[in-house]
């Protein structure tokens, strides 16, 4: 079985700061990580490989330094890494990203064997759109299984796949066919730690680097800024709330007094709340 998994290197958004004056992102010193959601997909891909045999190829589109993310994926035990990097890709939105990635996946298929499953994460933490996965599926004509919580079984001979898919209010049990695209839900597994051998292997293996031309992308108007129908017109910081919280003084009060004071303050501010809460309490 050949599995392709798309990962993205993202800035650790917990550590991003906004320039106090110019309101732009200060990226200096902000570490980059593998998009955390993609790790669930990667682990699932590795498990399937271990269970059914075959190979896992990790693919990323990004600047040259995204190689670090791919190297890390190799140290978890992926077999091969491909970095799609070219200045033509700069400024891609989800449509352009899914175009480039789908072309690259096709090329990966020609070069290393047609994939049976393409994995993506549920969403990224910087783009946060959850669109790239469905976009790739559509372009490659793959069946699309999003928000998969569990891959229940795969029958390679019959090319069948059974999954549990999260939907509003429950889990759908779906039967579909390979090849397909799966976006993995978070919290479904935990990324493994590669063995010494895998780590040594990863440290030495080369990340395959492809330009747009290498990936067989001819129509550059569909890449990067030019291939992106959406455009960011304005970036700004959220307006802070005018006044700070009204403080309830705590000095020398027992928790009981304080609590009474807070409850009173609540009902003064929002008298209708008294009925709301009282009513709820009956239920």
């Amino acid at each position, binding site marked *: 079985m050949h599995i392709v998994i798309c990962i993205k290197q993202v800035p650790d958004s917990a*550590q991003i*700061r906004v*320039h*106090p*004056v*110019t309101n732009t992102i*200060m990226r*200096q*010193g902000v*570490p980059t990580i593998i998009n955390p959601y993609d790790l669930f997909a990667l682990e699932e891909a590795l498990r399937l490989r271990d269970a059914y045999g075959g190979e896992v190829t990790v693919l990323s589109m990004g600047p040259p330094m995204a190689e*670090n993310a791919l190297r890390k994926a190799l*140290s978890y035990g992926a077999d091969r890494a491909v970095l799609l990097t070219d200045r033509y890709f700069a400024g891609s939105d989800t449509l352009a990203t899914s175009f480039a990635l789908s072309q690259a996946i096709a090329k990966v298929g020609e070069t290393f064997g047609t994939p049976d499953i393409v994995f993506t994460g549920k969403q990224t933490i910087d783009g946060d759109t959850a669109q790239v996965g469905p976009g790739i599926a559509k372009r490659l004509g793959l069946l699309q299984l999003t928000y998969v919580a569990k891959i229940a079984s795969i029958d390679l001979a019959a090319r069948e796949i059974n999954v549990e898919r999260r939907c509003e209010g429950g889990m759908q049990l779906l039967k579909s066919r390979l090849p397909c695209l799966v976006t993995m839900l978070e919290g479904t597994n935990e990324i493994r*730690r*590669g*063995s*010494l*051998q895998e*780590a*040594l292997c990863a*440290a*030495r293996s080369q990340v395959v680097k492809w330009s747009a031309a290498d990936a067989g992308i001819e129509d550059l108007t569909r890449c990067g800024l030019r291939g992106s129908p959406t455009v960011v017109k304005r970036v700004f910081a959220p307006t802070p709330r005018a006044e700070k919280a009204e403080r309830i003084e705590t000095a020398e009060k027992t928790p009981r007094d304080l609590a009474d004071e807070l409850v009173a303050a609540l009902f003064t501010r929002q008298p209708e709340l008294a009925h709301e809460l009282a009513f709820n309490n009956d239920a």
Partner: protein
Amino acid sequence: MIEEEFDAIVIGAGMSGNAAAYTMASQGLKVLQLERGEYPGSKNVQGAIMYANMLEKIIPDFRDDAPLERHLVEQRLWVMDDTSHTGIHHRSDHFNEAKPNRYTIIRAQFDKWFSRKVREAGATVLCETTVTELVRDGRDRVIGVRTDRTGGIIGADVVVLAEGVCGLLGTRAGLRSMPKPETVALAVKEMHFLPEEVIEQRFGLNGDEGCVIEAVGTISRGMAGLGFLYTNKESISLGVGCLVSDFAAAMESPYALLDAFKNHPSIRPLIAGSEVKEYAAHLIPEGGYKAIPQLFGDGWVLVGDAAQLNNAVHREGSNLAMTSGRIAAEAIVQLKRRSHPMTKRNLSLYKIMLDNSFVVKDLRKYKDMPALLHTNSCNFFTTYPQLLSKAAQNFLRVDGTPKIDKEKATTAAFVKARSRWGLVSDAVRLACAWR
């Protein structure tokens, strides 16, 4: 079941480990470097001063692509009491040279760069891999390491321990003892982010110029310690450090000290409006010459902080680390070239070479300093700074008191605080230790 054999294994990807791995790999040795952090530098969040000369000896053209923040053109030494500072400044346009001598760096980025160089030189670098044990043969020679990853032992002719100040591995293997509380300082530090222009404006800097402030005095509350402020491109590194034993004895919290330092009227305006990010605490070896452990043995050498090679008086650490790493590597390369085994006897070459370098020479010069400052810390870090402040104010305030009376008052204050004999003895002891 040895997985693989290397010429050398380097434990740690800090300054000393990178210097050693780079030097050996670029001389053609098969080198494996193991780092427990997620990436090199991930555990070293502090911004710091980097001394160009020692790096040049390893990577001559490092300026082409190393992530350097600012080159230093100004140094301020401040003696502080609670409300004032009295200082010596030196600023010179000579420092704006083609190849500046000192730079501020941010370790997280710098170490990553250095590590890339190590890889490009041909070494294999594994991160997120902690060495858990030195493996020895029946004759007690170190022959490899075991890690926290599944999958066996890795063998090597020699293991370079560049694991930093705590050096758990070396300690556990009985190669050195745990550093004592009176020979290590605990430094706490914060990064304060400010727009580039604001930093340049506040410190009177142009372009990549940088400024350093080092401060002693009541900020360390009578303990032997130091406050520091380094300008980076878009941030200021700010911290204080004191001996661990002092912290324990005085029951002071490092954070309270840092807080007081930040709020000192001389420091506060310099960092006003900044956004604090990254709080870090780290140990610095300060035992000096007398604390240096045995540096080599059968199949192993110690370098950098792990070997306590740190010049507390001049606050130099990374350069000693880089140099000791390079020298150990050069010794190993020489032995390898001559096909000499990595025995204790042969590895003594490292010690001989190190003794001849500035590293040991400098540490020997100040061998009595740590003890002096430690036993006298209250006088040097509280009494004198306060006296100095008073003297300066007395001198500057124009209030009709005859100058001669002012001078007399100042002298009297010094004598009253320390007695004539005390003053002379402090001066003599300081001079001796400095010599």
